[in-house]
C-alpha cells in the first residue's frame, strides 16, 4: 500500500449511480488515478461518463461507493467545499462579469486579500495569454478565447483536481487541433491532476495519459492510449477506437509460441501464445494500417487473403481501400500515399492480395 501512495491520489471506489426506474448510469466503477495524470473517460453519449464527472464535482451524489481525493473522502461535501474545479462544456462564463472578474470570482469567494487576488488573476491571464482582454465581457470574445478564460478561471484556485467536460467539443476542427496541444501544455505546466470526459477518441488519445473506455455505466478497459489502441480487451473496445477489421474464426492450433486461427478467407498465424483451447471461437482484430496490398501473391500460406478492390476513399495523406474478400466480407486497408504518384496504383476492380505480419493481430475472446 505504501508503495502506491502516489498511485491513489484520486480513488474511485465501486461507485454506483442509480437514478431509479431501471436506469443505472454508473455501474460499479473503480479506478485509481495518480497525481499529475491526465485521465480521460471516453464513451458515446449515455455511457455514464458525464454522470461520473458530476459525482466527482459534487453535483450528483453516488448511490453507493466512495470517492477519495488525496486521502479525503468527498462524501457529503457540497461542490463549493471541494478542492477541485470544473471547466464546463459550454464554458459557463458569467455574462455580466468581465474576464478579470470571472477569473477572480472563485478567489473572492475564498476571501483572499485584494492584492493576492489581483496577483493570481494576472498570473492566470499570462498563463492563457489573454492579458489584453481582461476588461472585456464574454460575449465580446471568440470561442477559443472564451475557452481560455474558462480554463484560467478553473485553475485560478490551484485546485487539486481539474475536471474537464468535453473541453474541445465546441471548437471547429482546425482550432481543435491547435487547442489540444496548448491545453495539455498548460495543464502539465501547472501540474494539476486532470479528469476529462469526451466522446472524441482523438481528443482522448492525444491529450490523456490514460483512458477509460466506458459503456453502459461500466469501464470496459483502462490503460494508456497505445495500450487501448493496440491491445483492445474486447470487441467493443477494438471497434470503438479507430477503425478495425474483425474476423471470426476458430483456434485450430494452440502452441506456447504460436497459434493458428482459421477464418473464412484466411488462416492467421499469430506469433505468440494465447490462453485458450483448440476449437475455441475467437475474433481476430486487424487494424487497417497493419495490412499491405499487392498484386502478386506473397509467400507463405498464412496471414494473407485474396480479394477485389470494391471501393476506395482518398483522404489526401492516405487512402482507405475496401477490399471484398472471397467470402464476401469487406476488409478495410489503409495505404499511406508516401509517393506523389505510383505507376501501379491500385484502383477499382483490381484483384489484390492483402497480407500482414504475424504480430499485427490482436486475438479477442470477448
Amino acid at each position, binding site marked *: 500500500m505504501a508503495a502506491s501512495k502516489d498511485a491513489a491520489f484520486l480513488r474511485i471506489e465501486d461507485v454506483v449511480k442509480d437514478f431509479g426506474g431501471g436506469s443505472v448510469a454508473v455501474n460499479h466503477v473503480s479506478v485509481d488515478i495518480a497525481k499529475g495524470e491526465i485521465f480521460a473517460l471516453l464513451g458515446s453519449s449515455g455511457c455514464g461518463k458525464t454522470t461520473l464527472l458530476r459525482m466527482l464535482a459534487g453535483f450528483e451524489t453516488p448511490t453507493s461507493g*466512495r470517492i477519495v481525493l488525496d486521502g479525503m473522502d468527498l462524501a*457529503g461535501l*457540497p461542490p463549493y467545499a471541494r478542492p477541485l474545479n470544473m471547466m464546463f462544456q459550454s464554458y459557463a462564463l458569467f455574462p455580466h462579469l468581465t474576464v478579470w472578474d470571472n477569473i477572480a470570482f472563485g478567489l473572492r469567494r475564498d476571501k483572499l486579500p485584494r492584492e493576492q487576488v489581483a496577483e493570481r488573476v494576472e498570473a492566470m491571464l499570462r498563463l492563457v495569454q489573454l492579458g489584453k482582454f481582461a476588461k472585456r465581457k464574454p460575449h465580446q470574445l471568440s470561442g477559443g478565447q472564451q475557452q481560455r478564460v474558462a480554463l484560467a478561471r478553473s485553475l485560478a484556485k490551484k485546485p487539486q483536481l481539474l475536471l474537464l467536460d468535453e473541453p474541445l467539443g465546441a471548437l471547429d476542427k482546425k482550432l481543435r487541433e491547435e487547442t489540444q496541444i496548448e491545453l495539455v501544455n498548460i495543464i502539465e505546466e501547472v501540474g494539476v491532476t486532470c479528469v476529462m470526459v469526451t466522446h472524441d477518441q482523438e481528443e482522448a488519445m492525444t491529450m490523456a495519459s490514460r483512458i477509460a473506455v466506458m459503456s453502459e455505466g461500466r469501464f470496459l478497459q483502462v490503460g494508456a492510449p497505445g495500450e487501448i489502441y493496440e491491445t483492445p480487451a474486447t470487441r467493443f473496445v477494438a471497434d470503438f477506437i479507430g477503425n478495425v477489421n474483425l474476423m471470426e474464426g476458430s483456434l485450430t492450433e494452440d502452441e506456447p509460441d504460436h497459434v493458428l486461427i482459421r477464418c473464412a478467407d484466411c488462416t492467421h498465424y499469430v506469433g505468440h501464445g494465447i490462453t485458450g483451447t483448440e476449437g475455441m471461437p475467437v475474433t481476430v482484430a486487424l487494424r487497417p494500417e497493419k495490412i499491405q496490398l499487392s498484386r502478386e501473391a506473397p509467400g507463405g500460406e498464412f496471414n494473407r487473403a485474396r480479394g477485389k478492390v470494391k471501393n476506395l476513399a482518398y483522404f489526401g495523406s492516405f487512402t482507405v481501400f475496401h477490399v471484398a474478400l472471397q467470402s464476401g466480407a469487406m476488409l478495410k486497408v489503409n495505404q499511406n500515399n508516401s509517393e506523389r504518384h505510383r505507376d501501379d496504383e491500385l484502383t477499382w476492380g483490381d484483384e489484390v492480395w492483402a497480407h500482414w505480419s504475424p504480430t499485427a493481430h490482436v486475438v479477442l475472446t470477448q
Partner: protein
Amino acid sequence: MSVVSKRPAWWRGRTVVIGIPFAWLLVFFLAPFLIVADYSVSEMGAVRPENIYSVSDGVVKLALKYANYVTIVADPEHLYLRAYVSSLKFAAVTTALCLLIGYPFAYFMARARASLQPALLMLVMLPFWTSFLLRVYAWKGLLEDGGWVAQLLLALHVDGLLAATGLISAPGKFMYTPFSLVIGMTYTYLPFMILPLYANLSKLDLRLLEAAADLGATPWQAFWRITVPLSKAGIIAGAMLVFIPSIGEFVTPELLGGPQTLMIGQVLWSEFASSNDWPMASTVAVVLILLIVVPLAIFNKYQAEAQEKRT
C-alpha cells in the same frame, strides 16, 4: 464503506424558499375558498364553522344548509340560471371573436419584417398598460348618441340589421345592449389573445412551410394543415386567458351592458353589496367556481406542459 446518499445539508434552504410563497398561498388563496364554501352553506347572519358541524356523542354531524343552492336552481324567475347561462354565452362569443380577430392579427404580426416586430409588439402592449377601465369607459363615449362609432354604424345603415337580430334594442341605440357588451369585452380581452398567439406563431419555423410548398401544397392548404395545428398551444392558451375571466366579468357589463345582459359577476356583487346576503353571494361564487373548474384544469395542464417543454 459505502455511503448512502443523504440529502446534503445545503439543501435545507429550499424549505424556506418554497415555504414562504406556499404558506402565503395556502393562507390567502386556498383558505378563503374554504371559507366561501362555508358561507355558502350557512344562513345569513349565522356564519361560523360551528354552524356547519356539531359533535355529539363523539359523532360529527353535518348541518349543511343547502337553502341557497336550492334557491339558485328553483328560483321561479330563473334569475341565477339565466345569469350563468348568459355569462357562459357572452364569454364564448367573446372568445370566438377574439380568436377571429386576433389570430390573423398575430399571424401577420409574426410575418412582418423582423425589424418591425418589436415596434408592433410595443404598439399592442401599449393599450394593455393603460387602464382597462378607462378604455371600457371610452366605448361609452364611442357608442353613445353622437359618438364616433355610433355615427359610423348609422352611416353604414348597420343598425337595422343589428336591431333585427336582437343585438340592439332599437335602431340607433347602441348602448346598454348585447352589442355594446360584446364589443367592450372583445376589446378588453383582445391583447390576451394576441400575445400568446404571437409568441407561438413567431417561433414557427418557416422552413416547414417552405417544405410544404416544395411538396405541392398551396399557401391556403399549408396554413390549415401546418400552421394552425402547430399553433394549437397558443390558441388554447389565448382561449383560456379570455374565456375563464370573462365568465365572471363585472366592470364591462356594469358600464356597457343592459338589463338583458345580466352576468353572474354582477349578480354576485349585488348579492354581496346590495342585499348584503353574503351567504348567497358565496353560493353564487361556489357554483361559478364549479363552472370554471374544467377550463381551469385545461389551462393548468397547458401551463405545466409549456413549462415541461421549456426545461
